[in-house]
C-alpha cells in the first residue's frame, strides 16, 4: 500500500477537544478527508471554526496538554497520532513544514536570517555549515529575495513584512518537505504583497510537487489556487468540493453566505456587504442540530433537531452537510416559508434588513440553543 497509495495524507474522524474549566471545547469535531500527493487543499472558515487547530493537530504541533486528540491521521502510510513527540520532531521540517500567519513575529528577532535558514537543514540533513549556506542562498534566490548573499547576514528587523514571509517560506521549504501547511500565510500582509506571496507559494508547490494545506478565512485567497476546498464550521467540514465546482455549485448555505460576504467590483458603490447574521457558535455548548441553523436563512424544524452529516452531491468529489442544500427545490421552499414567517436571517439574506450580530431570541428558541 505504501508506494501505490496516491494519498499522502488520510485524516479520519479527527477530533481535538480541549478540557477547560467551563467544559469541553470541541475545536475539531470529527474531520475526515484524504489528500493525494501533489494536490492542494484549501481549508476555509471564520475565526474560531477550528481550521488552525485542525492544521496543528494533523502536524501534532503545539497541541496543549489539556487537549484530547482522537481519530486517525495517516501520513505516507504511517499513523501520526501514536508517534512520540521525538518521532514527530524528526518529521517536522523534513517531511512536513509550516508557514505561519505573521512573518513579523515568526522569525527570531535576535538571530540572523542565515542561521534561521540553515540550522534545521544542518540538524536534519547533517550537511556542513558551508553547504547549508550555499543551499540557503539558493533558497533565498528561489523565493525571489534580491541580493541573497547580503540578506543572509542580516537580522529580520532589517526586512519588510513581505520579505520576511518570503524568508519564512524559504525556511519551510529548506529541507524539501513533502507536505506544506500554510496557516493564513498572507493575512498579515498588504494586499499587493499578498498576491505575490500566494503566487510564490503556488509556484513552489507545483515545482516541488508538494502536497499543501492552505488555511484561510478568505475564500478569495484559495480561489483558483487550490485543487479542493473544505469549508469548516464549528469544528466540522460542512462542504468539500473541487475548487471551481464549489464556487459555481455550492450546496451549503454557509458556503453561500461566505461567498456573498466577499466584496465584488461589479456591484454599485456603497452597497452594504452581506454579512452573516449572528456569531460563530459557542463550541462548549453548540446549538442542537445543524450548528449553522441559528444563522441559516433556510433553517427548518429538522435543522434545529438533527445534525446532517456529509453526503455526496451528484458531482464527483463534492459533498455537503445540509438538509436543504442551496439550489434545491426544498431550499427554495424553505426560504419562502422563512420569509413568510419574517425570520430575520431570511430577511437579511435577501437584503431586506441589515445583518446584525444578535440573533433575536425567538429564533434561537426554535433551536433550543443553550
Amino acid at each position, binding site marked *: 500500500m505504501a508506494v501505490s497509495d496516491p494519498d499522502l495524507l488520510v485524516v479520519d474522524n479527527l477530533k481535538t477537544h480541549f478540557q477547560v474549566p467551563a467544559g469541553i471545547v470541541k475545536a475539531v469535531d470529527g474531520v475526515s478527508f484524504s489528500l493525494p500527493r501533489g494536490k492542494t487543499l484549501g481549508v476555509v472558515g471564520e475565526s474560531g471554526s477550528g481550521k488552525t487547530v485542525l492544521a496543528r493537530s494533523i502536524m501534532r504541533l503545539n497541541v496543549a496538554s489539556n487537549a484530547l486528540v482522537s481519530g486517525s491521521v495517516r501520513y505516507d502510510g504511517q499513523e501520526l497520532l501514536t508517534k512520540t513527540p521525538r518521532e514527530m520532531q524528526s518529521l517536522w*521540517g523534513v517531511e512536513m513544514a509550516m508557514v505561519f500567519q505573521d512573518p513579523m513575529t515568526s522569525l527570531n528577532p535576535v538571530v540572523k536570517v542565515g542561521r534561521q535558514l540553515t540550522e534545521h537543514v544542518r540538524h536534519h540533513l547533517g550537511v556542513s555549515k558551508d553547504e547549508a549556506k550555499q543551499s540557503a542562498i539558493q533558497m533565498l534566490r528561489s523565493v525571489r529575495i534580491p541580493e541573497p548573499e547580503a540578506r543572509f547576514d542580516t537580522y529580520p528587523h532589517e526586512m519588510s513584512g513581505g520579505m520576511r514571509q518570503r524568508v519564512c517560506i524559504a525556511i519551510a521549504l529548506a529541507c524539501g518537505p513533502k507536505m506544506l501547511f500554510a496557516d493564513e500565510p498572507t493575512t498579515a500582509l498588504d494586499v499587493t504583497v499578498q498576491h505575490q506571496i500566494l503566487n510564490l507559494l503556488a509556484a513552489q508547490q507545483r515545482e516541488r510537487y508538494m502536497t499543501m494545506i492552505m488555511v484561510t478565512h478568505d475564500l478569495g485567497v484559495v480561489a483558483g489556487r487550490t485543487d479542493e476546498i473544505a469549508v469548516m464550521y464549528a469544528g466540522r467540514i460542512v462542504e468539500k468540493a473541487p475548487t471551481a465546482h464549489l464556487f459555481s455549485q455550492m450546496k451549503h448555505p454557509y458556503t453561500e453566505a461566505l461567498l456573498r460576504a466577499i466584496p465584488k467590483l461589479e456591484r454599485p458603490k456603497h452597497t452594504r456587504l452581506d454579512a452573516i447574521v449572528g456569531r460563530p457558535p459557542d463550541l462548549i455548548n453548540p446549538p442542537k442540530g445543524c450548528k449553522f441553523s441559528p444563522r441559516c436563512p433556510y433553517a427548518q424544524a429538522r435543522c434545529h433537531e438533527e445534525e446532517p452529516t456529509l453526503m455526496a452531491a451528484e458531482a464527483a468529489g463534492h459533498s455537503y452537510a445540509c438538509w436543504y442544500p442551496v439550489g434545491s427545490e426544498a431550499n427554495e421552499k424553505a426560504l419562502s416559508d422563512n420569509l413568510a414567517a419574517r425570520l430575520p436571517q431570511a430577511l437579511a439574506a435577501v437584503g431586506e434588513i441589515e445583518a446584525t450580530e444578535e440573533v433575536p431570541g425567538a429564533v434561537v428558541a426554535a433551536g433550543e440553543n443553550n
Partner: protein
Amino acid sequence: MGLFIAKRLLRLVATVFAVTLLTFLMTSLLPGDPAVAVLGAEGVQNEELLLQVREDLGLDEPLPVRYVSWLGDALTGDLGESYINSGQSVSDTIGDRFPVTAQLAIMAILIAIVLALPLGVLGAYHQSKWPDTASSAVVQVALSVPNFITGIFLIWLFAVQLEWLPASNWNRMSNGLGANLKTAILPATALATTQMAIFSRLVRSDMIATLQENFILAAKAKGLSNKFVLLRHALRPSSLSLMTIVGINFGALLGGTVVIETLFAIPGLGFRLINAISQRDIMVIQGITVFVAVVYVLINTLVDLFYVAIDPRIRRS
C-alpha cells in the same frame, strides 16, 4: 553605533560629575567636627589646637573652594589622605582594598548566574510541573534567608563540620590562586544565594514570556530539539532584564559586602568604609563612596553596550 557609544560616554561624564558633587556635599554635611575626631577626647579642650588642625585639613576654607580643590586632586587620582591614620593615602587604601571586594562581587555574580540559568530555564520549560515547583522552593528559601545567616551556615558546614575550608581570613591572589579561592569561595557563595534567587526568577518569567512567542513555535515546527530551541532561540531574548539586574546588583554588591566581609574577616572596601564611618574619617568615606559610585556608573554603561550585543534591534534607535 559610534554615535550610540559617544552618547553613552557623554552621559557617563555628566553622571560622574553629579556623583562627586553630591558625595562631597553629603559628607560635608555629616554631623560632628572632623578635627575633634582627629584629636580625640584630650584635644577637644585645646581651642588653639583645634583651629590648627582645621587649618591643616583645609576645613577653614569655604565649601565650594574645598570641593574644587578636592575635585582637581581627584581627577589626577589623588583622593586625599586619611584624617585619622595620618599620611595614609585614600587612593592607596582603595587600590589595596578594592581588588578584594571586586573579586568577591564578581565571584558572587558568576556563581549566581551559573546557578540561576538552569534553575530559571527549567522552571520556565516545566512551568507548574515538579521541576518548577522544586526550583521555586529553592529560590524562596534563598531569597528569604539573609546573607550572613547563609554565611554562618556555610562556615558551620564546610569549616566546622567538614573542615574543608577555612572559616575566616583572606589569602591574597599573590599567595596563589588555590589558596585565594579557598578563602573566597564561602563568602562569595553566601553573597551569591540571594542574587541567584533574584536572577533565576527573572530568567524564569522572561523565558515563560518568550516561549509564548510565535518564533518559538516556528522554531519547533522546524523539528529542532527542545534543548536547541530553549538554549539557542529562547535564552538570548529572555536575558535582557537579567543583564540589567546583573549590572545594578554588581554595583550594589561593591558597596554591600560589608556584613559578609565582617563575618569572614575579609580586608575589603566595605570593611574599611564601616571603619571610616565610625571614626568620622571624612576623606576616606568620600574617596570610597565616589570610587564605588563611579565604578557603578561605569558598569551600567557597559550593560547598556551589552544590550546592543544581545538585541540587534537596539542598534537602530
